[in-house]
């Protein structure tokens, strides 16, 4: 098997806060093969943002890495010095953020922002602008040369997100991380953006880590999916398997036991009664037990390991 683009092993991250140590990520294991699209699904607070911040190493000052490694191709990102890590950002690993309204600098033209991120290249300004124009064309912007002279607040949300995607793909990164890129857009726009993203992925061949609430989009876009809950990966595997043959009670609840409904599902995750546990005071045993309706004795005592081969899950009940 080829070297994975991203290989996260046993990653644990906590935040130091007034209320104690918040254990935001615990023993995360995840792999992304080159050219594959992997999705992450989970409700707010499950640790998706922390995971992304950890990968690009832009965690908050009060965060700490408790253990584990993040291998990008052959390099352990956690062992890199800040300068080398900075060299990777935007070149080998790119990001598209969630909120297009605030992710672009409001007082600079699109063109300026798109040429600034090419600062490492020795090309002339005209060449950089030409590159930017061609990228804007490929993400489906009308009148790309015109857009370069405009400011972000002149563009609609959808257009801004296309710009963000264009910026992220400018350097043909090996890994593109997309943090809920369509959550702030309306449904028709979402469809367009997702289709464009699929096409671009085929053209560029990059791996994508795609975070979303929208199960339907994950189903359509992603080859594999990982379900996160309260800082742990509770289930992962090929998307078809996970969604059609869900093994973890949480995943089942998300899918409402009816895979066919994914197509018509609302764009928000279904609401499950109960709430996330307190990350600074986690219970023993399985982290989902409080909201689970099929738990057994052992669930209260021992934390279920993530196992099961390609389609794995962390659940005592499923393991039986």
């Amino acid at each position, binding site marked *: 098997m080829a070297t994975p683009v991203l290989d996260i092993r046993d990653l644990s991250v906590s935040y130091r806060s007034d209320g104690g140590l918040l254990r935001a990520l615990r023993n995360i294991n995840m792999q992304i093969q080159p050219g594959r699209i992997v999705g992450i699904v989970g409700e707010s607070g499950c640790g998706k943002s922390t995971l992304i911040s950890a990968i690009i190493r832009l965690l908050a000052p009060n965060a700490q890495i408790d253990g584990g490694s993040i291998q990008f191709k052959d390099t352990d990102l956690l062992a890199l010095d800040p300068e080398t890590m900075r060299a990777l950002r935007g070149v080998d690993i790119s990001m598209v953020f969630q909120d297009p309204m605030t992710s672009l600098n409001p*007082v600079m033209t699109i063109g300026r922002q798109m040429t600034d991120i090419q600062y490492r290249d020795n090309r002339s300004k005209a060449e950089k602008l030409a590159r930017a124009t061609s990228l804007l064309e490929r993400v489906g912007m009308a009148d790309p040369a015109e857009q370069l002279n405009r400011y972000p607040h002149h563009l609609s949300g959808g257009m801004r997100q296309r710009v963000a995607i264009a910026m992220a793909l400018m350097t043909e990164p090996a890994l593109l991380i997309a943090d809920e890129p369509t959550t702030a857009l309306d449904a028709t726009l979402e469809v367009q953006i997702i289709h464009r993203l699929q096409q671009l992925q085929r053209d560029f061949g990059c791996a994508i880590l795609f975070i979303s609430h929208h199960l339907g989009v994950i189903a359509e876009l992603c080859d594999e999916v990982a379900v996160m809950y309260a800082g742990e990966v509770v289930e992962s595997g090929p998307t078809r398997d996970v969604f059609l043959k869900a093994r973890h009670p949480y995943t089942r609840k998300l899918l409402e036991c009816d895979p066919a409904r994914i197509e018509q599902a609302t764009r928000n995750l279904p609401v499950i009664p109960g709430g996330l546990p307190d990350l600074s005071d986690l219970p023993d045993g399985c982290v989902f037990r409080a909201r689970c309706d099929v738990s057994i004795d052992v669930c209260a005592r021992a934390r279920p390991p993530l196992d099961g081969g390609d389609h794995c899950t962390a659940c005592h009940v499923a393991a039986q």
Partner: protein
Amino acid sequence: MLKFITRRALLALLILFLAVSLLFAMIHMMPGDPASVILGPKASPALKAELSQRMGLDQPLLVQLGHFYADLARGNLGVDVFSDRQVSEIVFEQLPYTLALVLAAIGGATLLGIPLGCFSAIKRNSLLDRVTAVMSVAFIAIPSFVVALYLLLWLAVNWRWFPAMGAGASGDIADQARHLVLPAIALGLGWVGYIARLVRASMLEVMEENHIRTARAFGLPERTIIVHYALRIAVLPTVTILGLGIGAMLSGALFAEIVFSRPGIGKLLHEAVSTRNYPVVMGSVLVTTTFFVLSTLVSDIINAALDPRLRDSGRSS
């Protein structure tokens, strides 16, 4: 952009019109006949009679107002009671000195204040930050003329590091610069603190925003992010404040000019008040007020030029 400028300019014109009318009204609100008020108690009866006739002071108020504005439009601010020179001439002779002082003070304040504020934000709660914070508050609070007096006492009279009087030999830039140092410091010290605080607060806010995170995620060097991405937005409030602050500076400049015996509008005005030279008083106040209104207008326009978001919004601040 043009629409914005037109709108703001018209508003400024209106305010100016009202302010000038107010000055005009003040003369007529005083007890006694307007000629005495305008020319002061020192003027001879013959002069008063001539003025009354010339200005048509027996005519209805509105007609007088019209004449007043007609004169203004022609640049005629009246005649100095004592020297018989045109007030406009006298005022514009002194204006450059005051402008030089104000510009020097603003220039110094921004040159010092912006980097101080930036460093304070980046190195939060460091010694530099804390000291800057306390000193800023202190110098904003203390009246500038007290600072001027102490500077005069210590650095000019006691230690003789800088000249104590005047503007310096004309034509000699170095000498004039030396004469500018102490007054400019007295005038600008409070502003250094003010600007530093403003920039610090702005920077802290901007650095938290999402687009800075995006810039980092694309691996841009920290220095580029701080100077070109964050600071550029963070200094915007400074521009507005400066435009509005020119008014306060004009007042402070008056004190600086008097303490350091510098020529300028402030000194001119003060002398005119002491000698009851009303035409000069009114002329000076008129010119400085106009200047203030214009500077507010210009700062609004520059602000809109720097921050494109402001151009399209319906109302300004």
